[in-house]
């Protein structure tokens, strides 16, 4: 147990799996600790989606036209609203310091957190979208396409959002600054996402939009954890 015996417990390359497991498991456990958490996310989404027809004139044709857009904007806002919490509490209580000092590779730890965020905020939205879409009078294909586009798109929202959340850590103007930084990046996703369903409704193929979304997801999957980890380190300095 002396001197050289007390060496590294993890060799840095191999730790990716363990790192992922640690952060996903921990964040899911935290999210589920207050049993209402998941329900609240869903309720928020439902309420926002419900608000729109309330605020504009509820004509059936118009509703179906607005449908995909509203589902997407609501998803985007739900993501935006939950993002400030992604790192804030870990930052305030010092966990983020320990994450930066862990022998596990930091992008993997960060990616785990993002994954947990998506599982608790994005996935429920995707699952709920078909139901809400019916309320808007969307038909079979459009419904299916908008759900698929949300399934591909919402992870991008979480991934990009994480960068913004990390950049605005400990910075004044938090929530709104985050929105300002991230919304411009969200807009293309919104356009492709809502556009895919519009294309279908217009009798065209959604595949161009969806494959652009898919490409976006790939890029975000590779780039975002690295950028986020770098931003977190910057925030800790």
């Amino acid at each position, binding site marked *: 147990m002396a001197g050289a015996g007390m060496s*590294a*417990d993890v*060799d840095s390359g191999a730790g990716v799996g363990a790192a992922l497991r640690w952060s996903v498991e921990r964040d899911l456990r*935290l999210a589920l600790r207050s049993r209402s958490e998941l329900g609240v996310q869903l309720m928020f989404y439902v309420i926002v989606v419900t608000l729109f027809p309330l605020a504009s004139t509820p004509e059936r044709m118009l509703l179906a036209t607005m449908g995909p857009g509203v589902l997407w904007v609501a998803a985007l806002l739900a993501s935006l609203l939950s993002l400030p919490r992604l790192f804030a509490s870990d930052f305030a*209580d010092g966990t983020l*310091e320990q994450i930066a*000092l862990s022998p596990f590779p930091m992008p993997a730890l960060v990616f785990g957190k993002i994954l947990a965020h998506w599982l608790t905020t994005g996935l429920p939205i995707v699952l709920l979208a078909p139901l809400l879409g019916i309320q808007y009078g969307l038909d079979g294909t459009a419904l299916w396409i908008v759900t698929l586009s949300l399934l591909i798109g919402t992870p991008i929202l979480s991934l990009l959002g994480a960068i913004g959340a990390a950049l605005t850590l400990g910075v004044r103007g938090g929530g709104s600054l985050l929105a300002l930084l991230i919304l411009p990046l969200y807009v293309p996703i919104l356009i492709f996402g809502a556009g895919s369903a519009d294309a279908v409704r217009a009798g065209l193929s959604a595949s161009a939009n969806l494959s652009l979304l898919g490409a976006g997801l790939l890029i975000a999957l590779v780039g975002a954890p690295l950028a986020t980890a770098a931003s977190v*380190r910057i925030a800790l*300095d």
Partner: protein
Amino acid sequence: MLEVLELAARRGDAVLFRRLGFRVEAGKMLVVTGPNGTGKTTLLRILAGLTLATAGRVLFRGEAVAPGSPKLRAECVFVGHLPALKDEFTAEENLSSLVELSGVRPTASQLRAVLSEVALDAQRALPARVLSQGQRRRIGLARLSLLRRPLWLLDEPATALDTTGLALLGQLIARQLAAGGAVVASTHQTLDLPPEHLEWLVLA
């Protein structure tokens, strides 16, 4: 084990220290003291790789290490002002989560043993939110006890601890030194340790 060469730190317009150099051998503890605001915390964060130094180098086991290098991260443990506790988790969950983050998977009985070592038996299943200030710090002590790392960096470890807590901290440090580890700690209080193991660095 740790050597520091020509280290300098500037925060804003203020130069905290410049051309700082020292060595910490295995089995020794470096106590960093000095008035408030002289850079003790900053020094420890630089050593841990959290903050960038303005100039200078840190050698670990004779090799220069970049801030946040995997090698350093695998061999040192940093306990700062912030306890890294989740209010929603129980004391035990917090401890096991923190230790696992360092790559060690403790068994349930290990966790229980070390929690009773720091006198948190009764608080094991309480959420950290309701723990007293000292009880929160004790979870940090339990973590130190479970992680076998050659280098400890402790920022004011005595904060909020009662007399038995202080004694416990002394024991842990003594055990670490006896096992050939090294400790760098900042403190304003006097720790009860054999003076031959201590070296002093006074910032001013």
